[in-house]
Every structure is written in C-alpha cells, then in structure tokens.
C-alpha cells in the first residue's frame, strides 16, 4: 500500500488543524491592532473579499436584475418588467424541454460515470489477487494511464471526433455495424434519430470523463490504510462486499464531491452539445439550457430573457448540489467512518 502517495494528495489541501478557531479566542478580542494584524487583514481578507464582490457577486446580482428587464443586450436602455420573463419561461415549451433534458442528463451521467469509475478504480487498487498483500490487477498502472487519455483531450475535440464516428454514411460506428452484417444500420443517423440522439450524446460525455473520476477514486482508495482491507479479507469479505461495505463508506466524501462536479457538468454540457448537436438535436431531444440561453441572447437579442434562463440554471444547479448533500446525509454521511 502506497501511503506516501496519499500523504502527498491530502497535505496540499488541508489547513493547519484548528488554525481558524484561534481567531475567536480572548487574545483576539482585545483589539490590539498592530500593523502586522492590519496588513494581514488587508491582504488576506479585504482584498480577496473586494475582488470577490467585484468580480463574482456583483455580476450575479446584475444578471439577476437584468432578468427582470426587457434588455435587448445592445442598448444601454432597458425597462423593468418584473417577473414576466419568468412567467414566459415556465410556459416556454422549448425551454422546459431543455430543462428536462438537462435533468435527465444530471441523473444518468453521474450515476453511470461514477459507477464505472468506481468499478475500475476498485479493480485497479484492491481487486487483484486474493493472495498476499492487497493489490490491484496485474499491469494496473498501465490501465490507469490508458483510461486517463480521453480526459486529456479537450471536450470540444472529443465532440468533433465522435461526431465523425457517428456519421451515418462514413462513420466508424456504422462501418463496423454494417460490416458485422447489421444492415439496418446503413446510413443510420445516431445523432439524428430522436430515439438514439440523447443516449449517443451521453455516451460521449461518459466516455470522456470516466478516466478522470477513476483516477480521483484511485487516489482516495489509496488513502485508506491497507490494514482495513486486509482485516475485511480475513473476515471473509469478497471483492464485491469489500467495495460496498468498506471502500465506498471510507471514501464517501470524495464520491459526494465527484457527484457534484459531474452533475454540474451535465447541467451545463454546452461544449459537447456545441460540437455534437449544435441545433438541439432531433425534435430538440438533446437541447440543453445553456444552448437555449446562448441563442436567446445572441441570435434573438433577448438578453433579459436569457438572464432569466441563467438564473433558473443557477437555481437548478444549486438545488442539485443541495440534493446530493441531502442524500449523503440521509444515508448517514456524518456518523460513518469517513469523518
């Protein structure tokens, strides 16, 4: 077990234990504001907060305000119209369809990607021979490198590569299928048929991300002391049981973080869609909110309405993150060994 690697991973991200608590102690309440302290406040608190307010908070507030106006995006003038953009939004069947597509993706993509990533991570770290030390499959470092490859390619390139693979007439996929004698796939439009388009697109996203989350989970599993796995094995736990009862509870927080990151990606998905389905796909089955926002703002010149879409997208994203936290807590996130 390489505990050195895990030490390297965690030391970079954690503050000194208890370092923040000292601020509230009696010594600080005496207000002896020396130059040291004031400059410390200024550099580490006031400036970052000012930057944060200037470049993060204020654009958000501004965008939220624009969502209440009829701003076209190309004039300094705008009229306040209250919530009518939102009223329009929730009767706009195209936008609601885009939101539905996003939500479906935010459910399917994280579960499949993280499920696969966890499966491979387990194989590579603790799924090897049951004799001797706990270890992964033979040549596991090779698989680890290979599986990371898709993540190295920029998302837009992945999209372009796969749009060629899916090409009905000259694509690799139909070429292979027809060669195998499946004649019904001659000129079958994977990205152009409402039955397959959204799954084809989700497959590409999953393909591109499994490697990254696999490496993330490998790092987390390596941080668990090998003795725990050895003890489980002595108690007679098989590989599956070990994964369910030992690995996942011990790296629960990493799984939660991964869920949030990948869910946010699935709620956005703009880059993949721009390459694979720039027009929203057959019957709008792959249209995502970010695409609809973009056309509304820049093609239709309705920035106020587009900002309302942005606010809804942000709310959906935050709700998703909240949901992940909630689920984690319901399943006992706090009382488990992970903390």
């Amino acid at each position, binding site marked *: 077990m390489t505990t050195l690697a895990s030490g390297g991973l965690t030391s970079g991200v954690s503050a000194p234990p208890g370092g923040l608590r000292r601020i509230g102690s009696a010594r600080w309440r005496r207000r002896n504001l020396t130059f040291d302290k004031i400059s410390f406040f200024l550099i580490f608190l006031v400036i970052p907060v000012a930057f944060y307010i200037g470049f993060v908070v204020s654009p958000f507030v501004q965008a939220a305000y624009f969502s209440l106006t009829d701003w076209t995006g190309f004039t300094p003038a705008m009229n306040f119209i209250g919530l009518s953009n939102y009223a329009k939004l929730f009767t706009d069947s195209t936008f609601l369809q885009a939101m539905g597509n996003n939500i479906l993706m935010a459910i399917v993509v994280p579960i499949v990607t993280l499920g696969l990533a966890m499966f491979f991570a387990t194989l590579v770290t603790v799924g090897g021979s049951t004799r001797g030390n706990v270890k992964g499959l033979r040549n596991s470092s090779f698989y680890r490198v290979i599986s990371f490859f898709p993540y190295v390619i920029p998302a837009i390139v992945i999209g372009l590569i796969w749009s060629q693979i899916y090409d009905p007439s000259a694509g690799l996929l139909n070429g292979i299928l027809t060669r195998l004698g499946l004649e019904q796939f001659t000129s079958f439009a994977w990205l152009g048929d409402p039955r397959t388009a959204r799954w084809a697109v989700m497959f590409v996203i999953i393909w591109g991300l499994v490697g990254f989350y696999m490496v993330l989970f490998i790092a987390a599993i390596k941080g668990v002391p090998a003795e725990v796995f050895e003890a489980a094995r002595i108690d007679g736990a098989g590989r599956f049981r070990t994964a369910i009862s030992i690995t996942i509870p011990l790296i629960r927080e990493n799984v*939660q973080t991964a869920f949030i990151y990948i869910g946010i990606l699935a709620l956005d998905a703009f880059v993949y869609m721009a390459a694979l389905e720039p027009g929203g796909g057959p019957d709008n089955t792959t249209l995502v909110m970010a695409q609809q926002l973009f056309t509304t703002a820049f093609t239709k010149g309705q920035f106020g309405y587009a900002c309302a879409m942005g606010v809804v997208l942000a709310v959906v994203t935050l709700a998703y993150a909240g949901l992940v936290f909630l689920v984690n807590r319901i399943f006992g996130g706090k009382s488990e060994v992970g903390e």
Partner: protein
Amino acid sequence: MDINSRPLGRRDFLRGSLAAAALAATGSLAACATSGTGTTSQSSAPAGQVSDTNPFGVKSPSTVDAVIFNGGYGIDYADFAAKQVEAKQSGVTVKVTPTTKVAQTLQPRFVAGNPPDVIDNSGAGLIGINTIRDQLAELTDVIEAKNYEGMVIKDTLYPGVTNPGTFDGKFIVLNYALTVYAIWYSASLFEQMGWTVPKTYDEMLALGEKAKGKGKYLLGWGKEAATYYQTMAIGSAIKEGGDEVRLALENLKPDCWSLPPIQDVFNGLKKIIDAGYVKPGGSGTQFTAAQAQWSDAEQFILYPSGGWIENEMKKQTKSGFKMTGAPEPTVSSNSKMPWEALHSTAGEGYIVPSQGKNVAGGKEFLRAMLSKDAAVNFAKTKLSSTIVKGTVPADGFGSTALQSQIKMLEAAGSNIFSWNFVDLYGMNTDQLVVWNSFLSGDADVAKLTKGLQDITDKVANDDSIKKVQVS
C-alpha cells in the same frame, strides 16, 4: 499520513470545492452581466467639408473603425476598399478588424455607446437586425452619392438589392454580396446521363426514379442545413402563389404555412421523400460532409443552396463537375410567376451605427466598396457577384457556377424576390429541428406545417419582439 487524522481540513476543503464548483456552474449567469453602464454621449458631427469628392464630409485627419466578419469571403476585399478610402481621402486612415463572432464581440461596445463606424454584420453569430435597428444610420445618402467613377451609385446596382436592407421604409443595411438561390447540379453528369433539369416537383419525382436506376439519390441534406429545403420550398411557393404568399409569411399571419401553394410544395417534397429518393441519414451528417456527398462522391444529384456553394466546396468538388444552377421548381406549369423567376437577395449586410465616432467615415468606406474597382476585385477573387452590375465577364472568370448565376439573373429580369422573416426574428435554429424530422421521413406534412406554424405564432404573439410590417 492518514487522511482521517484531520477531519476539519478535509471538510473545509470539500465545502470550498462545492462552493467553487457551484460558482463555476453559474458562470453562464455572470456572462449576462455588463462591464458597466454605457455613456450616452452623442457622436460628434462630421466637421469635414462636404463636396462631390467627399459627399459625407469625412473629417481629416480621422480614423474609420471597420469590423469585418471573417468568414467565407475573408477580409482581404475589405482591406482593398480600405486602401481606396485612404488613397481618395487624404488624412483618413481605416482600421480593419476581423471577427468571426460579430454579436459576441460587439455587444459590449453597443451597450457602452461606442460601436465601430462600419460593421459587416454576417455569419452565424450576426447581430439580429431587429435588436439594433433603432441605432443604425440611414444609408440612403450612400446610394444617392456618386461613386469613385462619377456615376450615381443607385444606378449601378442590380434591381431590388436594397429591399432586404429596408425596414419600415428605412434603408439601413447595405447587403453587399449578391446571392442567387437555386438548385445546383453537375452539368457534366446531367449531360452524360441525358437528364434535364426538373422544372416542377412532378418532374423532380420522375428524375428521382431515373437517378435511382443509376444507383444515385435525387436529394440529400446535412443537419445544420436542413432549412435549405425550407428556402427552396418557400421560393417555389412564392412563384406558384405570387406575392400574397410572401406577404403572409413575412407578416407572420395565422395559418400562413397552410396556404395552398405552400402545402402543394410540401406534398410534392413529401412524395419524393416517401419514394426513397432522399439520401437517408442527413439529420446526423455534418452539412459540409453532406455537400461533399453531392459535389465529390456524386451520391445525390441535386442540391438547393445559395451561390456561395461553389466557393464553400471548392476543395471538395470533383474535377470536371461543372457546377451549374437552375431556378427553384414550381408546382404547376401555370404558376403566377414564371419558372425563371428567381429568389435572389443580397448578403453580407453592412451597417453604420449612428452612435459611431465617424459615421461619415463609415459611409465613405461603403462608397469605396461600391466603386467599380472594389466590386470587380470582389467578383474576381471570390467568384461571386456584388450588388454592382456588370462586374462579371461572360466567362465568369472561368467559373460555371458564376456564369449560370448571371444567366439566371438576366433571365429573371424583374421577377426577383426575397424575404427576411427567418433571419429577422432568428427562427432558423427552431426550424432546423422540424425540417430535419421532415426530411428524414419521421414527420408528415401536417406535422411539418404545425411545427413551422408554432414557431411563427410564438414570435407573432410575443409582444416583446418588435415586428416589421412588410407590404
């Protein structure tokens, strides 16, 4: 080193990462924000002396800020015009800036009240003209001025070319490149096979059968360009039913897509689709790949498109293809307009924002572009005509497509029409979805009609969208 020994640090990290991730996701929200409120100061009036050689009174010295769409035509033709301005108006310099995303690049400058002096508002990322038309200078004085050769510009242009740039009676967009919409085919292939160009949808269906006999499809399409068939269908319907069809569509009338001429065209197309004469899989094919199936592999034989098709497919056209255009088919032989009538409009819309610092300079730039030298230069290097007449020799600079464009224009005479509503209200993205289903055979004529009508009604019923009345 065990991660369990520092619960606090790790938990803080996770919280932080959540916050960071959530903020990253709301980035698209922040993208809506402006960089600050715009100044409302008016542009300074031109102080230059107005004369016959300087009709707009460009100040000297001054700078003209030109932002040019860098697409199919590139920007070298604009550089050419810029040099002309600098040669004619001493002390004036022109700064030509290329861009590929016009709306995204210029949106902040419009908000700040600091737009460029002249813009080539083209490409997929163009600014919807409806959004900014209150902020544009009228260009009537440009075409009423004399060009560099001393002729009144208006008299040197093809008929009707100012119509697409006129909104509610104000001429505000100068569309520079003349675009002829047609059905394109390989003259050499048709000659070899003994085929003739179909003039009606029934003839097209019959040709489809012949093509099938030779193992070829009649038509094909790409997913981003499915609405080229809409362009053809509207063109055919207008020829069949006359101006009332065009006006019903332009004015977003209820049930406009159910007008008999339009329905006849849709039914004609549907017969061709149902007969299996359209190459399947188009809704999943990138459009230039689909076009190469026509121009290079010759898997299908007719393609509706604009005159840019030759330039676009230059590198993917079979040698000896002899790309040639024919007018869009009519429904019957007794249509209101003759078969020779042509859907032609001008593209590459040049605009001069009225808030620009040098409005006169922007207009002078357009005057240079409309000079004979600049227009001939464009035709020669881009193999495409400008709105200026008589710049293409009979040999079309060796291009069969350009030759046929000029021939079609001559045959059409004054029977030239075009429409604006699709681009004006930004409908194309929504319409693509409907057309992809129709062409792939999944949707019938009723579903196509309903889909298109819904898109039209949505715009018609939205009070926040300014409408343009067309008569």
